[in-house]
């Protein structure tokens, strides 16, 4: 077998290799970016959520629009809400069924408990407020789950509840359940009452 000395390389061969190399480099660069929606963080250090502290919720009464940050008492080291994380919202949906939020809130439409799909938030719609609500319970029947849930689970529920309220981007919303025909678009319906026109909380993003 004889290797023959070669005249200058064919141009097409060179170009091909350069293009392939560029493509590979591009892919490699992409590998260093991440996509927050798809991150699955299984074990954030999640101490037990704090037990509910007795405290005077003097600012808040049923019927008043909520103020942000009221009464959050839990110790948490989870980076704040999983609002951009599709997996966490999906886990929150699972926990919503498991811990029987459906029993009072249905799939967001409410029943014994107030709806979560509309834009009326009695105790605040920002993540910290919802977090506090879940931990502390609320008048008229919302149980206190403080001390019974891991903090990561609470934050996943917070993310799901906010998704119900329309705060999650379209590509983050979980898909339909396999057991109940709740359309994903129905899980973020805005109520069309007169109050909703006026109640704009500062941090509320536009849904969709």
């Amino acid at each position, binding site marked *: 077998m004889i290797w023959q000395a070669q005249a200058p390389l064919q141009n097409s061969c060179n170009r091909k290799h350069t293009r392939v190399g560029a493509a590979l480099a591009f892919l490699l660069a992409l590998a260093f970016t991440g996509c927050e929606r798809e991150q*699955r963080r*299984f*074990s954030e*250090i*999640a*101490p*037990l959520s704090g037990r509910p502290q007795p405290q005077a919720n003097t600012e808040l009464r049923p019927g008043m629009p909520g103020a942000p940050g009221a009464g959050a008492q839990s110790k948490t080291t989870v980076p704040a809400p999983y609002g951009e994380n599709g997996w966490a919202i999906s886990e929150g949906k*699972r926990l919503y069924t*498991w*811990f029987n939020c459906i029993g009072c809130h249905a799939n967001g439409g409410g029943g014994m408990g107030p709806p979560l799909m509309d834009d009326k938030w009695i105790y605040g719609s920002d993540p910290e407020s919802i977090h506090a609500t879940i931990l502390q319970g609320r008048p008229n029947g919302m149980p206190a789950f403080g*001390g*019974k*849930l*891991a903090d*990561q*689970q609470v934050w996943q529920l917070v993310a799901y509840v906010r998704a119900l309220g329309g705060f999650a981007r379209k590509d983050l919303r979980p898909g339909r359940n*396999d057991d109940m025909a709740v359309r994903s678009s129905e899980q973020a319906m805005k109520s069309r009452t007169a109050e909703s026109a006026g109640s704009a909380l500062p941090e509320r993003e536009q849904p969709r």
Partner: protein
Amino acid sequence: MRSVLDPAGPQAAHIAALWWWMFWIFSTVFVLVIAALLVGIFRARARDDAVMTSPSVALQPTRERRIGWTVAACVGLTIVVLIIFLAANVITGHRLALLAADNAVTIQLTGYRWWWKVRYPDPVPARQVTTANEIHIPIGRPVLINTDSQDVIHSFWVPSLHGKRDLVPGNPSAIWIQADRPGRFEGQCAEFCGLQHAHMRLLVIAESEENYQAWLEAQRQAARAPSDPLAQRGLHVFETGPCALCHSVRGTEASGQVAPDLTHFASRATIAAGTLPNSPGHLAAWIVDPQHIKPGNAMPSNSLSPEDLQALLAYLGGLK
């Protein structure tokens, strides 16, 4: 470890027999084909490169006919081998179908991500047994396992006893197994079901009829109330902490339905669906940080004070 080839029951034994038939016949076929290939190449090998440039081989009609008949004969032999194999297959299937089905034990097996719910149904509700990840069966009796799934497709497979059956949600199915000798037979989920498919194992423990009945009777009892203060504190931690939200222990206030039943937890040989041996050290590691052992599974990490943890371990260790 040769589980499929180490059968402990009639089903697996018939299948293993079929395997050995096929193995020897097909190995012979393979050796013959490779021999023909190598002999053919070596016999016909050109000794020098000049052959490359010379004209192609001239074809003689009689030789071609002979070659054609040889090929036809080989194809005929292939068909014969396939017929033999088909017959062996039919015989095996027949044998499996004819296995006894009377005096059977019935078990309801439900697949979850990533554990097995085991229920021994009984006409009297109080005598039903619910446990997880471990099946006890008496030797010599057929066992009917009714399968279903609560979320995605799983697959029940204990290689020493029988082939597998998929647990398809909404498509309940059933499989017969039988163990003819006592022992501990390991199985594993055999349909990809997500992050912890690799750690979804189960144990089938085959024992004598007396031992089996004794086990069943013990499982029917509610959990004994703990007598020592440490275990009582453990029960308190269990009922008021996050455990009760998902797990259940009959006889206490804990009745969570979404995680394995722990009523007789200490009687089980393994924890976390066969992933770890059931010992206090492993249990402590599992309770405190299950995500480290089975990342992605549904049990969250729990940070308890050391005293609470010791109490909990004492309580769980008493749930025999």
